[in-house]
């Protein structure tokens, strides 16, 4: 099997992949993860207040995955993911205000209130959407990779999916096409142990998910998805590999979602202790915080300043969302087909 094969890369890109991580970069990891955490907590609050309705899937606990991955990606690389998409959008540089406004169904949201939590997009940020249908984004991201290659760019397509999604047939159609056509695509499996209330053990015949692409000749690896540095390093190598034209790559990030699947979740499928243990012993933000203070000798003051900045951004986003107008009902009929 081709698993855990070291990706091949040109000397220049290989060198880049080995470059040391600076303090500033670690601080950026911390900041980006904290932004997601606080944003999601606020979204949860607004939900509780009835300002967000319907389905809303929080990313809390998984922050290191998307931050580690995207910190290794470059401008113009595209991202596509599932409905658990708020973190991905923030890291792609989308405006927290517009994201929160969409969550609350306002005219100023990224989809003018018509998409909601699961369906937001930004052409500017190369963010090709949250997708509510489990697995649907995987072949779409494969097509995006095709277009990048066809148009002669060196941009790569980052395609995120959950551990539950890997059991959809269209994932394997994608793996085959991506390998067959050597497409510049990175499949990121965010293995948070559960698809709704079903554990990986009860849904998947094999529990190592990255090996699922191996029969197609796609190299892959597993990484501790609670450690942003580890994810970042793997991402750098993988992206260098894919950008060099060597074809697709799969990363399985082992992570954990702290909150319920969506906002109502009876949580009968796991114990409180399991969740508490992950939070206490493996929290991705705590891990970086400790490293910053203990190893990199960053002062508490510096971190507190970041905390304050993040708090402000999130408060501003929530205020913006709440003070934004509801969309005009005439919007109901726009953008169904192209308007003459």
């Amino acid at each position, binding site marked *: 099997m081709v698993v855990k094969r070291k990706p091949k890369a040109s000397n220049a890109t290989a060198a880049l992949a080995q470059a040391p991580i600076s303090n500033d970069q670690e601080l950026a990891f911390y900041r980006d993860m904290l932004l997601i955490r606080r944003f999601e907590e606020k979204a949860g609050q607004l939900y509780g207040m009835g300002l967000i309705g319907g389905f809303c899937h929080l990313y809390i606990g998984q922050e290191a995955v998307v931050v580690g991955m995207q910190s290794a990606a470059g401008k113009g690389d595209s991202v596509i993911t599932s409905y658990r998409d708020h973190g991905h959008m923030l890291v792609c540089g989308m405006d927290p205000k517009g994201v929160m406004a969409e969550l609350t169904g306002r005219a100023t949201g990224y989809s003018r209130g018509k998409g909601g939590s*699961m369906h937001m997009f930004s052409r500017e940020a190369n963010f090709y959407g949250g997708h509510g249908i489990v697995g649907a984004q995987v072949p779409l991201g494969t097509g995006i990779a095709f277009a990048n290659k066809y148009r002669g760019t060196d941009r790569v397509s980052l395609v995120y999916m959950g551990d539950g999604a890997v059991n959809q047939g269209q994932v394997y159609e994608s793996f085959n096409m991506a390998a067959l056509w050597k497409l510049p695509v990175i499949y990121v499996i965010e293995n948070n142990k559960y698809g*709704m209330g079903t554990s990986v053990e009860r*849904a998947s015949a094999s529990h190592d998910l990255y090996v699922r692409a191996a029969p197609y000749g796609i190299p892959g690896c597993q990484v501790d998805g609670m450690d942003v540095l580890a994810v970042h390093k793997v991402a750098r190598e993988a992206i260098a590999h894919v950008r060099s034209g060597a074809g697709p790559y799969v990363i399985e990030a082992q992570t954990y979602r702290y909150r319920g699947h969506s906002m109502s979740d009876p949580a009968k499928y796991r114990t409180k202790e399991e969740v508490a243990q992950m939070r206490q012993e493996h929290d991705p933000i705590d891990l970086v915080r400790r490293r910053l203070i203990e190893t990199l000798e960053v002062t508490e003051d510096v971190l507190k300043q970041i905390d304050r900045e993040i708090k402000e951004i999130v408060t501003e986003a929530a205020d913006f969302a709440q003070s934004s107008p509801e969309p005009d009902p005439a919007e109901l009929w726009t953008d*169904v087909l192209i308007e003459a």
Partner: protein
Amino acid sequence: MTTMNMVKALNSALDVMMERDPNVLTFGEDVGYFGGVFRVTEGLQARYGRERCFDTPIAEGGIVAAAIGMGAHGLRPVVEIQFADYIYPAFDQIVSEAARLRYRSAGQFNAPITIRSPYGGGIFGGQVHSQSPEGLFTHVAGLKTVVPSNPYDAKGLLISAIEDDDPVIFLEPKRLYNGPFDGHHDRAVRAWAGRAEAEVPDGYYRVPLGKAAIVRAGEAVTVLAYGTMVHVAMAAAEEAQIDAEIIDLRTLIPLDIETIEASVRRTGRCVIVHEATRTSGFGAELIALVQEHCFYHLEAPIERVTGWDTPYPHAFEWEYFPGPARVIQALRRVMGDAT
């Protein structure tokens, strides 16, 4: 008799059938251990074991396809597609395989399967938790399509569906699971308890496929509805004080055209109400049939009240949802009252 909401009634139907027939089994995403996201299969795994009530991977194509294979071999699988909006990965198997197995094998094989799925809006589900896809299935020869509107019918129809030797698409109006809903989203939520349709026999009984119910007798206009819209139509008729006869179709295919015809011949007017998008919806088929069967008795053009021809939006649930106000307008128009 026990007072049941629709969830309990459906659960009871599955329980009764699993008890009676070892060939009946049920599976789907979070159906076994968890008992289904709407709790319809709660307790069945504990009662009948993991061989007969189990979880599946998230793979709707595989779930339905496996059920068809089981059915061809003589089992009677009941699968749950968690939301009707997730049925499309299985659409190929439903259309190309389940619907045609009997025909293409000249009756040697059939697919006696039931595909249960919650459908419809009113829960603020946005684009992928709100759709009403019944028209996609009624358009396919070889499928039966059932939509109950209350607990009593839900149980009796599900038992009939499971016993039926053809593939049945069984769409459950999710907004009715816990109580009737007449479209007045700004009023207090109601429960099923206290209503006659919530008095459900504990044991086996059937509500036959292909038999509509007249849920409100009237002389002025016939309203054809199913699922949630039965309750919306009832509210509209009451509020506008129109002597409407309301027919709950209960099954779309097979359709009880006799009951429809007899009513429209009497009233001379007809309004059709569904939540699904308008163009090529089941309402179009109903209009065609009513004019074929009742043309010389009609005194006004037939009206349709439907969802709009747009995806189900996140922010405009109640602009989209065809509530009582829209039904009243249509009733008034067919009654020749332009106000």
